[in-house]
């Protein structure tokens, strides 16, 4: 379908597609097998200016929005969701500075992110705080000219690989979530270290690691936004980023559909290519229908969000749920179409199915997303 992209949007798609075809697809199976972080590919992505898409022009970026990020992520995810996740996590990690940072913070960090010389990560989740963000235990205490942070973040994408971390910590523990603030912690800060590296089912090329802050002392000016506004910034950040996760589902499902159709045309059983059998055709048709519906929703949602509407959270959650549930279904069906071959690592669809699962879990489980949609509906109809 023609989505009437602007010339610049088409350029972003073409560039991301070249990265995927030339740099990602040839090595994705190896990165997956070795659990290896795609450092060189991220450097290629940086050289191609893709990190600069959503950074305002005055900070060295291209000034695009959520929609442009979605277009790039979709293409990268067609190659590998692990690589695309590493790219997306850097955007997620810098959104708090972009949304709530001081002018000095923006001047300092945004040009580095735009050029891809430094990468970011987002530190929210803890052992006791997953879907329930109020379970955060990391604490930040003022001490002279510094903030001193103590606590451990868990399952942080790009942990140990990024240089800039947005850390959510309680500055007024008695106020619960309303006492949370966001800080920039940099690689090498005293008292900041990396813990356990996770061994995952899918997106194995991405790094998922613990961040440990033990009397981690950082300068006063690392507080992002006003004290106590951290939770609001987190919510705004996730509203902006969820369409990106949705687009990973779109790119992944497209890749799975491509593999399934190609295989079904070649595989001969009962003297015919299996695509000539209605049972297979209907599976492929349903995959294509769901995919295109998901793509249309994600594009529309991203464009809508770029206008900063009031119902941002609802729309953002809707597209995340639909596109990622769809990606799980489509990748599972792709394995089914390929049959025994699909189950083998020689073919790329088993990896796609493993990669799909995380999309329903991270950046807010799909159950939590449905809560958001439900709560918003409750408010709208009151």
């Amino acid at each position, binding site marked *: 379908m023609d989505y009437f992209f602007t010339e*610049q949007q088409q*350029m*972003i798609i073409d*560039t991301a597609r*070249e*990265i995927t075809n*030339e*740099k990602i697809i040839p090595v994705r199976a190896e990165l997956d097998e070795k659990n290896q972080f795609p450092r060189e590919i991220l450097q*290629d992505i940086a*050289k*191609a*200016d*893709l990190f*600069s*898409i959503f950074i305002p022009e005055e900070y060295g970026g*291209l000034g695009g929005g959520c929609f442009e990020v979605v277009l790039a992520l979709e293409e990268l995810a067609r190659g590998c969701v692990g690589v695309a996740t590493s790219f997306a996590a850097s955007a997620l990690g810098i959104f708090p500075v972009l949304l709530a940072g001081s002018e000095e913070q923006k001047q300092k960090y945004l040009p580095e992110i735009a050029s891809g010389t430094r990468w970011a990560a987002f530190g929210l989740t803890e052992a006791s705080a997953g879907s329930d963000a109020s379970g955060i235990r990391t604490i930040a205490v003022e001490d002279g000219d510094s903030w001193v942070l103590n606590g451990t973040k868990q399952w942080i994408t790009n942990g140990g690989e990024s240089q800039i971390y947005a850390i959510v910590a309680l500055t007024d523990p008695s106020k619960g979530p309303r006492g949370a603030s966001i800080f920039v912690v940099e690689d090498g800060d005293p008292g900041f270290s990396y813990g356990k590296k996770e061994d995952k089912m899918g997106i194995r090329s991405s790094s998922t690691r613990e961040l440990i802050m033990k009397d981690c002392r950082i300068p006063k000016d690392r507080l992002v936004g006003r004290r106590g506004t951290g939770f609001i910034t987190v919510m705004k950040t996730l509203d902006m980023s969820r369409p990106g996760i949705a687009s990973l589902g779109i790119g992944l499902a497209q890749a799975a559909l491509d593999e399934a159709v190609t295989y079904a045309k070649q595989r001969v059983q009962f003297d015919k290519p299996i695509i000539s059998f209605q049972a297979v055709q209907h599976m492929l048709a349903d995959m294509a229908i769901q995919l295109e519906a998901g793509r249309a929703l994600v594009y529309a949602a991203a464009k809508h969000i770029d206008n900063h509407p009031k119902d941002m959270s609802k729309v953002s959650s809707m597209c995340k749920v639909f596109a990622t549930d769809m990606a799980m279904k489509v990748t599972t069906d792709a394995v089914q179409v390929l049959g025994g071959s699909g189950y083998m690592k020689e073919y790329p669809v088993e990896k796609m199915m493993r990669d799909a699962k995380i999309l329903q879990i991270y950046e807010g489980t799909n159950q939590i997303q449905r809560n958001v949609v439900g709560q918003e509906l409750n408010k709208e109809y009151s």
Partner: protein
Amino acid sequence: MMKILVCVKQVPDAKDVRLDPKTNTLAREGVESIMNPYDRHALEEAVAIKESQGGTVTVVTMGPPQAETVLRESIACGADEGVLISDRAFAGADTWATSYTLARAVETLGGFDLIVCGKQAIDGDTAQVGPGLACRLRVPYAACVQKTRQVSAQAIEVERMMDDGYDVLRLPLPALLTVVKDINEPRVASLKGKMRAKQAKIRQLSAADIGADPQCIGLTGSPTKVVRVFSPEPRGDRTIFSGSVDEQVDQLVACLKALI
């Protein structure tokens, strides 16, 4: 500050090469054109040297007006400017006339420290134009370079790929290199590069602009005459002899006798 020149060629995409059975020439109609793959490596090497040493990269191509596409692609990948050498009088040039024409263009543009070319073009496969250009410009050259070891304002040290290993050559500048694919991984064109490429002004040079002798260019200036073009029969089985030299000679003689 290095002034670097890269020569590129627009060629038919190798995935889609067909011969016209009537004329025995390459069927170019409806075939997609791409930048010669070796030239992408030449460009990458030039841009990498520019990034480490400072300087400029100029890309030239001799070809029809549509060859401008490869110049814009080069700018998107880091070149500073593109020059299209284009004239109806250049049509039908072989490697002799092409190297003459390029040499005239290089002298017109003037003052390059380093010229980088791909080893060969995938359509003609002669690998003659790079060395030919160096000879006409009377500068030293190294063909089939697989690695740049060191660059200074005065000289460049490179590894030249050989059948069994490599030579290390040190060339005083100005010099010319032709490169093989092992030398680097070409980058993907950047977004800002693509935007710059779209707006870039491409300089055009005609036969008159470069002061070319009409007798030396195009079909007139080309001593090569193509008698016949054909798809070769696939080679049969190959045998590799082993043992001492004497034993190998005996085996070879036996083989030849069997053929007679």
